[in-house]
């Protein structure tokens, strides 16, 4: 059993600076803000209760917003994952010019600030935007709206999330030794069987990391839904901001933030449980 003596003290000392910053700017304000949402006035007294949350979830527009946010998040995360995995597989197991081109291509969105990505998507997908202009030229008209609705949000989120998901999955795949694939082939397993029985299980950690972080990131994203989303229903981050800056109701804004955080924390918990590594000595 390790004793935490000097090493423990030194460790704590070294991690103190960023930890204090975190506590000061995030943890304490968050705790204070959330406590505020639990304080309700009833019959002249101030008590702690979940009343505010109950009232909120009874408001149709807010309920819809939570459901909408979850739906968009799950679809975006799923779509990104389904796009990134084959891409990562191809990059892991193939060489050639196509591979190099893909390698250079998929990283690009990482370096485009989200606000620009959203704006670019708007000019691209809006009514009479670039896509519609191109299609008009080949005679195709009457495309359903791709912008300022859930479709627009999903497309833009996928666009922005591809680099991270692919990088993580690729790294996971790279850790799988070629010899393992070879042995599978040697015992006569086909490509699909190899994927399901060898690659997928060995790549679990990367899968969990990418899915949970995709989920957390998209759930909390503000810029994309704000610039690219429609009028109703809206993602929680936009609704939160409206309640704060437009409707002058900060308590609801904080309550929504708390709900959003709890959902993110669930994804975070899934991540921790899936990835908790045994310490190597």
């Amino acid at each position, binding site marked *: 059993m390790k004793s935490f003596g000097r090493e423990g003290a030194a460790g704590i000392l070294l991690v103190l600076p960023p930890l204090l910053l975190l506590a000061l700017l995030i943890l304490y304000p968050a705790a204070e803000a959330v406590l505020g949402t639990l304080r309700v006035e009833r019959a002249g007294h101030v008590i702690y209760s979940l009343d505010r949350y109950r009232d909120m979830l009874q*408001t*149709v*527009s807010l309920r*819809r917003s939570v459901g909408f946010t979850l739906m968009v998040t799950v679809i975006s995360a799923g779509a990104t994952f389904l796009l990134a995995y084959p891409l990562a597989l191809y990059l892991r197991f193939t060489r050639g010019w196509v591979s190099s081109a893909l390698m250079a291509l998929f990283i690009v969105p990482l370096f485009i600030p989200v606000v620009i990505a959203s704006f670019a998507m708007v000019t691209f997908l809006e*009514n*009479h935007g670039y896509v519609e202009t191109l299609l008009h030229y080949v005679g195709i008209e009457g495309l359903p*709206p791709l912008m*300022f609705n859930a479709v627009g949000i999903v497309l833009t989120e996928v666009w922005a999330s591809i680099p991270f998901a692919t990088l993580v999955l690729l790294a996971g795949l790279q850790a799988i030794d070629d010899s393992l694939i070879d042995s599978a082939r040697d015992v006569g397993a086909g490509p699909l069987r190899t994927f399901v029985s060898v690659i997928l299980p060995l790549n679990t950690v990367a899968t969990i990391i990418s899915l949970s972080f995709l989920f957390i990131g998209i759930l909390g994203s503000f810029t994309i839904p*704000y*610039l690219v989303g*429609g*009028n*109703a*229903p809206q993602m929680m981050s936009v609704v939160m901001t*409206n*309640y704060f800056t*437009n*409707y*002058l*109701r900060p308590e609801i804004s904080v309550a929504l933030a708390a709900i959003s955080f709890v959902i993110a924390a669930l994804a975070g918990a899934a991540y921790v449980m899936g990835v908790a590594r045994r310490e190597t000595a």
Partner: protein
Amino acid sequence: MTRFRMTVGWTTLLAVVALVVSLTGQPARGQAPGVVLYISGDTNIQEMFEKQLLPMYEKDTGMKTKMVFLEHGQGAAGILAKIIAAKRANTTTDVDLYETQPTFIAQGAQDSIWTKLTKDNLTNIAKVDLQRPEVLVSAGFGIPYRGSSVVLAYNTKFVKEPPKTYDQLLEWIKKNPGKFTYCDPQTCGSGAAMLYTAIYKFVKAEDYSQLAFDASKETAWEPALQLLRSLKPAIYNNGFYPNGNVAVLQLLGRENIWMAPVWSDQGVSQRDQGLIPKTIQFTQITPAFTGGDSAMAIPAHAEHQAAGLQFLNWLLTTKPQTVVVNTLAGYPGIQWKFMPKDVRDKFAGIAGNFSPLPNARYQADAKRLWQEKVAGSAQ
């Protein structure tokens, strides 16, 4: 390894340079400004001050000016809080002049933070019509130096006869489905105008533009909200309300829609810049869309109170007022009879009257109810 070392070397060098630059490149002190203005509004207001009014003033009086610009009134509440905090702490505030919505000025009046403007400290106040909504709503502490209102923009290519009243407008919308929209009231004033004017069909504007607030009076808005909701299928893209004034102008420009409420100054300026075609014209309807969202107030404890008063007084003279009218295609703060004839003639059409805005708390609730009942799906 060498490649990495080179990358590290360059990166470190860049980082050090950037750090040094950043520490020395802090906002220079230089010559202290003689007067500091906090201006809210759209970008055309910012440019008008930066490129025309402030240089003009500096040339005329030799006084250095500084402007802090609040995009669309972002942080207006914060500035108000700052001024109040300074008053309570018995210090001066760096805000010498504050342009903002009249209702914010009224809110501040409760803390006695504003200078009472009279003909003794502001001679040109005589030129201003003190019965204007901006003055009344700001409890007498705000003076308008400009006026703009929301007007109806329409594309003459498709619309031969524009509607003249709000009811005619509603009829036109229903007869031409998909060719009209207004921007999300939470993001822009021209869309909010559509909302407030609908409300004013059923209630008296003056009941909501003063400081008093009574949430129960909002039930009177229900017919207006239902009216706007019923328009949904006839609105562009089955009920799409874009984000911001400019987005609506863009839709007009790309001929996605044929008619929309826009700010008079923004519309004219975009047409002049070729961003919307020359076929776009503007007209005012009855009852008029809202406007008059701006007035100037001077904190009583401003650091350069006298300079602020001097600037405001100058702003109310003919030369700067002509700049204002010409640049913004709106109307002046002073009465039309004090303006040169050619300017009067040029803008007679759109510079009619306008309805006042509801106070800030009503505005907040109106926007929320719009989002819930008009934008949101079936309640």
